């Protein structure tokens, strides 16, 4: 054993060499920006005129009192709290269905996965057309006697529309991850539980869920992190409106940075977003020992 340990460490130079590109990338494209954003959040910087000045915590004080920022933060939370459960539940449901044996299941898998490969912009543009007040969706609803609302303008539908467009785009990927996980559950577990007289629902709760819990955790982390980064959908579907009702934090940061050109304030907002997502992810990671069945 000792020989093996020395043997492995002998190669650490190769290891560092091979890991270098990704580490360098991380340094410049992740670490440096984080540090930079934190530093910028204490300044006022207008790239149009080129003026920058150190203004201490002014941006943060402004942030706390900014009604817009507070409303935007609220929207972002609502958005995530709807999107994540809907996405994950739908993905799991589809994965279970498509794990059964029947003809055509591969085609269905492909159908549900197809939006994942389409460009977000193309997908969003098509939905913008479909959701128009006088568009195809309301036409179909009208045919079955329902007077559809103006999906992109009558609250609360704009937010729901943005969420669902993103869910349909993305759920196929989560479905595939769950599918893989489901196929990893050992058959013997089900067989022995049937001997003990367990029904389908009990099997699901006591066997399936625990076994795929590592995947659930990882999908949750990725989906939650992704929910806070939705941007193109907002820009193209509603432009943040009506009013501010679909303006989420990532979109608000973009506007402050690239339309208002107040980079200091945008940076302060970005720091808040980053800290929040960090806390959420660490929290999920820490409580994993409670409910995740196996070591990840």
């Amino acid at each position, binding site marked *: 054993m000792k020989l093996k340990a020395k043997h*492995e*460490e002998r*190669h*650490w*130079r190769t290891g560092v*060499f*091979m*890991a270098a*590109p*990704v*580490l*360098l*990338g991380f340094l410049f*494209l*992740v670490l*440096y*920006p*984080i540090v*930079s*954003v934190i530093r*910028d959040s204490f300044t006022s910087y207008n*790239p149009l005129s080129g003026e920058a000045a150190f203004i201490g915590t002014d941006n943060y004080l402004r942030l706390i009192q900014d009604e817009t920022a507070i409303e935007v933060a609220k929207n972002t939370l609502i958005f995530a709290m709807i999107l994540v459960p809907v996405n994950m539940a739908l993905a799991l449901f*589809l994965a279970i*269905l498509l794990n059964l044996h*029947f003809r055509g299941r*591969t085609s269905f*898998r492909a159908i*549900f*996965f197809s*939006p994942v*490969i389409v*460009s977000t*912009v*193309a997908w969003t*543009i098509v*939905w913008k*057309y*479909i959701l128009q007040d006088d568009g195809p969706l309301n*036409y179909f609803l009208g045919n079955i006697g329902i007077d559809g609302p103006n999906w992109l303008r009558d609250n609360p539908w704009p937010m729901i529309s943005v969420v*669902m467009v993103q869910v*349909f785009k993305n759920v196929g990927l989560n479905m*595939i*991850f769950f*599918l*893989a996980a489901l196929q990893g559950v050992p*058959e013997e577990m089900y067989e022995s539980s*049937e*001997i003990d007289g367990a029904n389908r629902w009990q099997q699901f709760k006591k066997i399936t869920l625990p076994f*795929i819990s590592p*995947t659930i955790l*990882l999908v949750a982390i990725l989906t939650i992190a992704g929910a806070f980064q939705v*941007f*193109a959908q907002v820009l*193209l579907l509603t432009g943040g409106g009506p009013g501010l009702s679909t303006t989420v934090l990532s979109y608000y940061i973009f506007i402050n*940075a690239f339309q208002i050109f107040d*980079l200091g304030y945008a940076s302060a907002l*970005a720091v808040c*977003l*980053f800290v929040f997502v*960090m806390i959420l992810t660490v929290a999920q990671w820490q409580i994993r020992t409670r409910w995740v069945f196996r070591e990840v």
Partner: protein
Amino acid sequence: MRNKRYTRRNSKLTGWRLFGIYVILILMAAPFLFPTWWMFTASLKPIEEVFSFPSSLIPNDFRIENYQEVFRLQPFLRQYWNSLSIALIVTVLTVTIATTGGYAFARIKFRGRNKIFVLLLTALLMPAEVTLIPIFRLMVKSGLSDSFFPVIIIPAFGAHAVVGLFLMRQFFLDFPNELEEAAEIDGLSRFRVFMKIALPLAGPAIASLAILSFLYSWNLFLEPLVFLTEPNDYTLPVVLPQFTDTYGSPIWNVQLAAASLSVIPVMIVFVMAQRHFIRGITMTGLKG
């Protein structure tokens, strides 16, 4: 000792159950399929029919001119090429970086390896809008903001590369040790072990990563939006919303024609390769 009941789990569904499943699946498939259908059909309609009341499922009046308009209004061919070439470069770079890095983190011990890996994971959480601002300034200062450099470097070396690294590391973790140990006893250096033994067997994982990276770059919107300001340099996602009339409202049929053009090649490849593709993603995946 196979009890007859067990085979139920693995047997084919029949009868009412099967019918029920089909009904549910077809209903649920609607929002996944119809958008694509509407996109293609609307792209072929004249503008009056796009919003005609009642809406038509199949165009009454085919207008191929919509597609010609796409090329007339924008240097679309050039923009297509931009998207394609950028995606190819990003794919090659990402695969190289993620595979070598993933192998290192999985199979080679070096000081602080695990701690660094956890640190890298924070890159996954970083919203692009957060990192974009300083990167924008960095690019401006180094005079690179008016080129394709940021649009290539950011996906290939940034957060996406970390995702790739994560996937490849996961794959290499499950690698059997014996093959490599045998090679090392034969005197190969660690790197050559990687090149000659590990890499060739990583084919499916690399293929999946390549496909994911290509799609990621193909669909990138925020970075091209910010860094590419000349129509000749645009990539497809940036161009699509720009088919508007003089007042800024979208010319739907032309815009959807452009969207169709950007989606068709990806769809074709996908349909042909979907079996391998989906299986490949499962293999690298987050089974845990």
